[in-house]
């Protein structure tokens, strides 16, 4: 009896000690508040991006794009207010991204949010901004971002549009008759492949081969042999990882596959692939070294100056998005409702990276189709602009 009583005492002491420990440590949260940082002559906005963690390379692009654009806009001085971005590092972690967006909107009272960049972090943050009714500028290509939410404004072409445009280019423009599709088993890869198959059907064509692989796979021999046996004219790729693109291009060349590869522009892929990338056709809103884009070199330099070592379309469209936001703010729209209204009315906005961005009350995709360019071994050359 005494033993049971003693055990019970020990047990309740253990729970009590644990609970006390929990409460004391949790109370530290109370001291961790933030303050709004906007004053009358400043317009502060939130940039929630992956500045550290596995997606930090994308985050660096966004940071560079915002900083370069803010520097230009503020130097121009034609706004009544000074733009003041506040950067929130969400560490490439879904839970932290969600938390940072909540902090930005509820504690710091930010009227608009930019970022994050990849779909796995952007989708949950879009849920948050939708519920908090704050306009949200996004760069991820996942179609659901603008299909399922009314507060998001995409500064890129969606996966749907990219996939359709790639088939238009391959079948409509290049007149390819035997098209194969390669994709990773990722959300973007699978969805893009489905879109491409649907678009091919509209041309009364069927993919001669559809090959899936795991992201980050090292040896693609089995997939490439299947492709080789199908003997395609063009291989449509929906890869989003530069090392996957490079491995596929290199191993494809080693196996003697002569079909032209067409895929999304992924920063660093051509450098990793080396000679095997020559002739690779990509689609993207912007190319840093496009010989036929007069703004490209200057914008690339600006992005480099702000920390983007290898500027890609992510930094460039972020630059345009920030200019677009400045345009809306310049019309006197500084509250979240007014900013949303201003973005809804932002039609044929002349960007630096992209010639024209157009939004509408029911169309929150600012760009409908990408530019197609071929890598000649040293730089890109535009081959088709829909």
């Amino acid at each position, binding site marked *: 009896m005494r033993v049971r*009583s*003693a*055990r*019970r*005492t*020990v*047990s*309740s*002491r*253990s*729970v*009590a*000690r*644990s*609970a*006390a*420990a*929990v*409460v*004391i*440590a*949790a*109370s*530290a*949260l*109370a001291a*961790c*508040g*933030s303050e709004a940082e906007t004053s009358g002559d400043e317009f502060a906005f939130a940039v929630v991006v992956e*500045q*550290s*963690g596995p997606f930090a390379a994308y985050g660096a692009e966004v940071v560079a794009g915002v900083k370069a654009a803010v520097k230009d806009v503020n130097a121009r001085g034609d706004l009544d207010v000074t733009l003041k971005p506040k950067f*929130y*590092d969400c*560490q490439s*972690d*879904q*839970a*932290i991204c*969600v*938390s940072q967006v*909540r*902090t930005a*909107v*509820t*504690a710091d009272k930010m009227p608009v949010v930019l970022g994050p960049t990849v779909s*796995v972090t952007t*989708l*949950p943050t879009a*849920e*948050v901004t939708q*519920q908090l009714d704050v306009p949200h500028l996004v760069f991820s290509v*996942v179609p*659901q971002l603008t299909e*399922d939410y009314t507060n998001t404004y995409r500064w890129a072409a969606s996966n749907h549009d990219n996939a359709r445009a790639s088939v238009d280019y391959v079948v409509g423009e290049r007149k390819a008759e035997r098209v194969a599709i390669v994709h990773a*088993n*990722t*959300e973007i890869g*699978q*969805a893009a492949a489905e879109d491409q198959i649907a678009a091919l059907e509209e041309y009364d064509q069927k993919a001669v081969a559809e090959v899936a692989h795991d992201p980050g796979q090292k040896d693609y021999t089995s997939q490439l042999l299947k492709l080789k046996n199908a003997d395609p004219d063009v291989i449509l790729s929906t890869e989003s990882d530069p090392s996957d693109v490079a491995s596929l291009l290199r191993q494809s060349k080693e196996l003697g596959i002569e079909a032209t590869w067409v895929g999304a522009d992924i920063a660093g892929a051509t450098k990793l692939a080396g000679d095997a990338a020559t002739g690779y056709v990509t689609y993207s809103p912007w190319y840093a070294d496009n010989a036929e884009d007069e703004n490209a070199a200057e914008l690339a330099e600006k992005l480099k100056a702000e920390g983007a070592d290898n500027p890609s379309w992510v930094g460039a469209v972020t630059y345009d998005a920030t200019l677009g936001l400045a345009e809306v703010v310049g019309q006197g729209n500084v509250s979240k409702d007014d900013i949303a209204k201003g973005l809804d009315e932002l039609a044929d906005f002349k960007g630096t990276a992209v010639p024209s961005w157009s939004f509408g009350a029911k169309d929150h995709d600012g760009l409908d189709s990408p530019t197609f360019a071929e890598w000649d071994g040293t730089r890109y050359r535009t081959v088709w602009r829909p």
Partner: protein
Amino acid sequence: MSDVLERVNATAVRYRTGWVPAVVAFAIIGLPVVVTDPAQRFLMGYVAIVCILSVSLHVLMGMAGQFSLGQAAIFGSGAYASAWFVLETGASVILALVVAAVVGVLVGCVMGTVAARTTELYLALATLAFGFVAESLVRNSETLGGAQGLRGFDYHVFGQSLLEPVALYWCAAAVLLLAMAIAASVRRGRLGRALMALRDGPVAARSVGIDTRVVQLLVFAVSGAFIAMAGALYPAYALTVDPSVFSIDLTLVVLTAAAVAGVRSMPSVLVLTIAMTVFRHQSQSWGLASYVLLIYGVLVVLMLRFMPEGIAGIGARITRWATRNGGDAS
């Protein structure tokens, strides 16, 4: 005489610790009053969710000595089970927690079955594989939203939406307290003694009649239920659930807390889990966001090198030192 002394001692202990539950209750209720910002309140809920994971780790590793990396698989299974159940039925989060717990017990039992046939490194690898299998299954399941996952669910309890951060906090705190109470109860019961025997010497445990396979199955089932319930609440915080929920990142954070705190001490593990979760979320304020994982890694290495028993071992060391010195003096 000795009975009297024991009764006096027990009364003194009750007197010394009697105020603790009252303070704890006051603080738990008072915390949402002190913290008014919704983002911080959501963070409180998230911290409680991660703490539930820590308690499960304390039971599995601290009490039973079973080194598992399969927490992510059960956490994700619980998250998907609850989100799917709420989407399909519109039921209360309480029912969703029950469903998730059942799923957690089932997955835990499967892991326990594997655990009975493997040891140490192979056990860690086998349990880690569960996460990859589960992620792959979910990614290819249209019912579970495929690679995009599930969204648009409405978590609610007693008519109150969990979109209200205080409601999420209460729910998570209630599950956490339940998990803590069960863990403490297990510790003082026959199962607890069997678990510790399994931890300290499986062969010796078998020699005194403990069926270690059943005990392993039970501990994986119990901790599986806790983990799945934590997972069940996660979608209410993140508002989406996708295959990334099976990522091992969260498991590693909790494992780090356990390694630094000393996994055998529930209070230490909980304090470290709270501190590390809050630190990670607030690290940008101190300019340390880029170094969080580095700091975690260094902490683990230092603790394993200099204090293998973790922070909880400091008290034991002091006690041993005092006893030794006291003994020498006498």
